[in-house]
């Protein structure tokens, strides 16, 4: 797999890549790699087709900073909750409706840690990782605007 960026270590694995990935295979490999985990949470983001209006989503990113920034977010999650592991995979480039954009996986002894870490990672990836989405629709093209509720979600952490 010709991943653009890959980082491991105690904060978990981070991959940023243009290639499609198999969510199920990644989730299975992640779960199999855990020791002492009783709970595994995964989140998968999918390109919504919005009833056929969406033709393509283009995801731009900031090579280098993307990996560094996700690494910081992952390290923060690893410091805040008792995890046995975490994983982030995020695509960039052109994606079609129904394609998997990204996934987060967390594992812990207890479910509360795994859920909290996964939600934290998602909230920060949404608003603090340098990705920008442009949609090409039948009705026109445009950049996806950040949602006020995504910014507000950060205040709970």
């Amino acid at each position, binding site marked *: 797999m010709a991943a653009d960026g890959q980082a491991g270590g105690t904060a978990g694995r981070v991959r940023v890549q243009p290639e499609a990935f198999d969510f199920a295979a990644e989730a299975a490999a992640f779960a199999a790699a855990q020791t002492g985990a009783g709970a595994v949470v995964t989140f998968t983001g999918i390109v919504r087709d919005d009833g056929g209006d969406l033709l393509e989503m283009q995801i731009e990113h900031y090579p280098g900073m993307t990996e560094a920034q996700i690494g910081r977010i992952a390290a923060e999650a690893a410091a805040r909750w008792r995890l046995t592991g975490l994983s982030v995979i995020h695509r960039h480039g052109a994606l079609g409706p129904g394609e998997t954009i990204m996934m987060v996986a967390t594992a812990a002894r207890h479910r509360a840690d795994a859920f909290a870490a996964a939600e934290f990672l998602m909230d920060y990836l949404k608003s*603090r*990782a340098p990705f920008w989405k442009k949609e090409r629709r039948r009705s026109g093209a445009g950049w996806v605007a950040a949602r006020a509720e995504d910014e507000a979600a950060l205040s709970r952490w």
Partner: protein
Amino acid sequence: MRLDVRYFAWVRERVGAPRETVETGAPTVALLIDELRARSEGHAAAFADTTALRVAVDQALAGFDAPLAGAREVAFFPPMTGG
């Protein structure tokens, strides 16, 4: 000071380029923006409303008052939409 300035998403589209090298003595991001605005109509459009912009200095998020001493790369972009 020679700075690598990078633009993403609609900031890149308005400026008309993904990056440029600038020679500047601006001590902060805000003062660098004042210089960049004067470069072209595209730059002026990109920096018309700085509340719509986010900044990174050397690939870490920063504020408009961030100092530029020692910096090598500054990036401007809209609020991020990852996930």
